[in-house]
């Protein structure tokens, strides 16, 4: 491990111009991610979590503040930083094998080596038999596996994932979370995953970053501190989950002071509990 954080985000502010006005998506956000760490970012929609991820990946470079990756400023996308999108965004006109090979297009590796890497990553995500298939022939979970393989094939040292399992059914989602965790353990790379699913954030993350909306800020960072493999239903994990949910509820429900006090006084049981986020 090198000294200093692997990903360093310092006082980053990002504003968007909307209809002549300006909207602050991120307001003075700072976050350090250590090498090999798995950080999850959770928050309601509009809290800027995806914006933060895109900035970290270098897909968006119009911000105030500083972002460094292994000590180098991030000023655009890099092959050292992999990216996985919510929709796998496979090119429908290419086979799975060719889609994954896109990640090596600019690697400068000789052909044979590229081929070996593609095969290796097909195997890593369990798609070996589907090399020649077209994206429309795959299920949603398989397509996202291919998306992950494309993000990993160039051996980046950090992988950014933007709600990668958001569109999948519950069973597939659970399975892919486990697979991702195995990949992370095996490849020993840094992962930053954005999600609106608290269970997912707590299950996967070494630390859970909780963001609050309007303007996007980091509200709290909760260390999970539990050994892996984790049991989804274990009391310790549920405890962390509840803590994160609590914190989130406070961020997403800016109840006016007066009203909050009134509710609290009259009937504590009526206090709104917002568990569903996003």
């Amino acid at each position: 491990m090198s000294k200093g954080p692997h990903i360093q985000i310092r006082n980053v502010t990002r504003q968007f111009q909307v209809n002549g006005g300006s909207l602050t998506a991120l307001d003075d956000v700072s976050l350090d991610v250590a090498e090999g760490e798995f950080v999850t970012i959770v928050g309601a929609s509009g809290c800027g979590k995806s914006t933060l991820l895109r900035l970290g990946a270098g897909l968006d470079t119009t911000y105030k503040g500083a972002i460094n990756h292994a000590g180098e400023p991030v000023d655009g996308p890099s092959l050292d930083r992999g990216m996985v999108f919510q929709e796998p965004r496979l090119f429908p006109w290419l086979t799975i094998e060719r889609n994954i090979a896109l990640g090596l297009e600019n690697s400068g590796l000789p052909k044979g080596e590229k081929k070996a890497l593609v095969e290796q990553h097909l195997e890593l995500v369990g798609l070996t038999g589907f090399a020649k298939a077209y994206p429309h022939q795959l299920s949603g979970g398989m397509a996202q596996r291919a998306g992950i393989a494309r993000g990993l094939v160039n051996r980046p040292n950090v992988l950014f994932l933007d709600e990668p399992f958001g569109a999948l059914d519950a069973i597939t989602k659970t399975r892919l979370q486990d697979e991702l965790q195995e990949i992370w353990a095996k490849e020993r790379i840094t992962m930053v995953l954005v999600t609106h699913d608290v269970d997912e954030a707590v299950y996967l993350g070494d630390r859970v970053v909780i963001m609050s909306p309007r303007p996007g800020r980091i509200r709290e960072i909760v260390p999970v501190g539990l050994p892996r493999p984790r049991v989804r239903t274990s009391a310790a994990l549920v405890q962390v989950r509840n803590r994160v949910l609590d914190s989130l509820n406070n961020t997403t429900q800016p109840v006016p002071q007066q009203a909050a006090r009134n509710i609290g006084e009259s009937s504590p049981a009526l206090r709104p509990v917002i568990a569903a986020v996003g």
Partner: protein
Amino acid sequence: MAAISETSGHAGPRFSWPSRKRIGIGLTAFILPVALLVLWWVASDRGWLAEQILPSPVFVYETARDMIASGEILYHTAVSLRRVVIGFAIGAALGLSLGVAMGLSERVEDYVKPLFLAFAQIPTLGWIPLLMLLVGIDETLKIIVIAKGALVPMALNTFTGIRNVSPRYLEVGHALRFSRWQRLRLIVLPGAVPSIFTGIRYGLTHSWTSLVGVELLASSEGLGYLLVWGRQMFWLDTVIVAMIAIGLVGFIMDKSLNNTETLIQRWKKGEA
């Protein structure tokens, strides 16, 4: 009709049409032509129209047979096809380049597109008087007119295809640090292929119809010429044979392009 009741009705037994399904699409396509043929036959048999205007199907069939046997119809078809192949190739190539240029560069679009759209509004046949004075009435005229017929749909569809390539795919290319050339080769062009194919099909249809138009006006051979000549001689049987040949060639061209398209774009089957 069957399709409407099938989709709007219940799945119950009353609304299923198994016998129709078994007939298949291949056969249903013949119902209308055969009906028209019968109508034609009855009309000429009963003398609803003078024989000079509407010859009997049997007579037309005999004429067609003779014209095929003598090689006459084949000769004229070959002449017309040759013109279309050359004209279409030129027009499609120019249209493709223009569409790509406008699609990729907003500056080219700003400079060229308004004029191009105005140009596209003038029907192909509307160019003929001016062109006749400029290049005469020889092959050059026909080639230019045919090329123009292909150019407009080709350029417009290519342009739209390129502009409609999903920004999500482009962002993947950005994340993978694609160069301009990689972006074009790996994302933009393959993404625009379906639309370009539509352009090719429309272009070919336009080429074919404008060919017949220009042959009507200035030609001494070709299927369009055959039409004019037949009318002048009052050989309506010849006219009808030529019309059938024109329709048939156009249909075959469109159909084979369609098949090529499905073959090339196997990935599209499920529509991503």
